[in-house]
C-alpha cells in the first residue's frame, strides 16, 4: 500500500453528484481531505453530509471524480474501495445485532495482522463483552464496536459519520478520545454535529449547504466566526450544537 506524496490530499472529490431513488442529494461537491489530521464535513441537517460520505464509498448512485491518494476510485465497487484502505463508521452504528462483539470484529478483519491489541487498548470495555450480542449493547458500546471494526485494520482514510449522535456527554468524550487516537494512525473525514467535538478534533472543515460546498478552511476560522456558524450551521455557538 503506497502512501500519498507530501502535500497531496489523501482524498480528492471533484464534481460529485449523488442520487437516492432518482432524487439528487449531492450536487456538484468538490473538496480535498489532507493526508493527515481530521477534516470535518459540516452543515445543517439534511444538506447531504451522510449522502456525500455514502457517495464516496459507492453506497449510493454517484457520478464525479473521486481520487484516493491520486488513484481514481469512483468506478470501483464499495468493497474494493474499502479494501484499498478506506474504513467506514456509519451513522447509527449499524453493528450486526445478532452477532457477538467478537464476531463483529472478526468479520471486519481484512488484514493478515489485524490490530487487535490497539482495539483492546482503545476499548477495554469491549474485551469484557466479547461474547455478548452486539444488539444488546448500549448506544455508546455499539459506537465503540463500530469504531473498533474500522480501526482493527490499517487504513489510509477513515470516513466517520456522526459518531457522537445520541450519546451521553461522558460517552461523547470517550468517543472523541478514541477518534483523537485514531487520527494518529490515519486521516479522518468526520461528519459531526457536535461543534465542541469538531473544535477539539478537526483542523479543517468543509461546509455543505443544499448539497453544495459553501465553505472550506480551518476549523478555528469557522468556529470563531459566530455569524458564519449561525448562517451555515443554524446554531449560535458550539454549546448549542453539542
Amino acid at each position: 500500500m503506497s502512501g500519498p506524496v507530501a502535500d497531496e490530499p489523501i482524498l480528492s472529490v471533484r464534481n460529485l453528484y449523488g442520487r437516492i431513488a432518482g432524487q439528487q442529494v449531492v450536487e456538484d461537491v468538490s473538496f480535498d481531505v489532507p493526508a493527515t489530521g481530521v477534516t470535518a464535513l459540516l452543515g445543517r441537517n439534511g444538506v447531504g453530509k451522510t449522502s456525500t460520505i455514502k457517495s464516496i464509498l459507492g453506497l449510493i448512485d454517484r457520478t464525479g471524480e473521486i481520487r484516493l491518494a491520486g488513484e481514481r476510485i469512483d468506478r470501483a465497487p464499495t468493497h474494493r474501495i474499502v479494501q484499498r484502505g478506506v474504513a467506514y463508521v456509519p451513522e447509527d452504528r449499524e453493528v450486526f445485532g445478532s452477532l457477538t462483539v467478537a464476531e463483529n470484529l472478526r468479520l471486519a478483519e481484512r488484514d493478515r495482522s489485524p490490530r487487535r491489541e490497539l482495539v483492546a487498548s482503545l476499548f477495554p470495555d469491549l474485551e469484557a463483552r466479547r461474547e455478548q450480542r452486539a444488539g444488546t449493547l448500549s448506544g455508546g458500546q455499539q459506537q465503540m464496536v463500530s469504531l473498533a471494526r474500522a480501526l482493527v485494520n490499517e487504513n489510509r482514510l477513515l470516513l466517520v459519520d456522526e459518531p457522537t449522535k445520541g450519546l451521553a456527554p461522558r460517552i461523547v468524550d470517550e468517543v472523541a478520545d478514541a477518534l483523537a487516537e485514531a487520527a494518529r494512525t490515519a486521516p479522518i473525514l468526520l461528519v459531526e454535529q457536535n461543534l465542541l467535538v469538531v473544535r477539539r478534533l478537526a483542523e479543517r472543515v468543509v461546509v455543505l449547504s443544499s448539497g453544495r460546498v459553501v465553505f472550506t478552511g480551518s476549523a478555528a476560522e469557522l468556529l470563531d466566526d459566530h455569524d458564519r456558524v449561525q448562517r451555515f450551521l443554524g446554531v449560535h455557538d458550539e454549546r448549542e450544537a453539542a
Partner: protein
Amino acid sequence: MDTLILLVITGLGLGALYFLVASGLSLIYGLMGVLNFAHGAFLTIAAFLGWEAGRRISDGTWTGLVISALVGILVGATVAVLTEVLIIRRLYERHIEQALVTVGISLAAVALFEGIWGTDPIYTDRPAWLTQTTEILGARIPNDRFVLIACAALVLGGIVLFLRKTRYGLIIRAGVENRHMVTALGIDVRRSFTLVFAIGGAAAGLGGVLASVYYGYVSAHLGSVLLIFAFIVTVIGGLGSLTGAAIASVLVAVLQQFANFYLGGTGDLVVVVLLAAVLLIRPRGLMGKAA
C-alpha cells in the same frame, strides 16, 4: 394413541421434506431478498437425474439410493449456481424482474421435464426396508419417515455448523441482517450469494430424491407441489430465519396430517388458514426480523 403417534411421525417426515426445500428459500431470501420461484425446478431436476443415476447403477438398493442422493445434491447445487450466476446476479435489487424470471424458469422447467420424462408419474423402486414399517407404541410407522427425519436433521445441523463455525457462515449471518454494511466492511458479498444458492440447491436436490422415496414416484410436478408448501413454511417461520423454517416445517406438516385425518382431508385448507392467520397477527412470521 397409535394414531396420534403415526400422524406425528408422518408429519415429521413430511416436515423434513418441507424443511429441505424451505431452508434454501429462506437463506436466499434472507441474504439477497430474492423470492426464488425456480427453487422447485432445482428439486425436480435433481430428483429425475438422481433417480436415473441410481436405477442405472443399482436399482432398488441402498447403494442405488445413496448414489441417487449424491447425484441429486450435486445436480441441485450445480443448477442453482448456474441460475444465480447466469440470471439472478444481473437482477439484484430488481424484485419484480426476479419474480418474473424465476416464475418463467419454473414454468419452462416443468414443460421441459414433461417433454423428456412424460406427464405421468414414474414409480420408483426402493430398498425393501423403506417399504416396510416399524412398530412404535402400537403405531406402525413407514420406515422411510425415519430416513427423511434423519436427513433433514443432518442438513439442519450441517447448515447451523457452517453458519456458526466458518467465515462464510459469519458473512452470511451478517448479510442476512445488513448486506450493505457487510460490503462496507470490504467484503464481496456476491460470492456469498453464489454459495447460498449452492447450499439451497443442494438441500433441495436431496429433498427431491427423498421426495421420490416418500411419494414413491418422480414427476415433472414434484417440485411445484412442494414449493408451494415450502413458501408457506418460509413465510410462517419468518423470511430469512433457518430456525423459523425448521419449526414451521414441523408445525405445518403435523397440522396438515391431523387435519387430513380428523377434519376430512382438509389439511391443505387448514395450512392456508394458518398462513393467513400468521400474516394477519404476526406478519414477520414466528422468528423473522421486524420490518
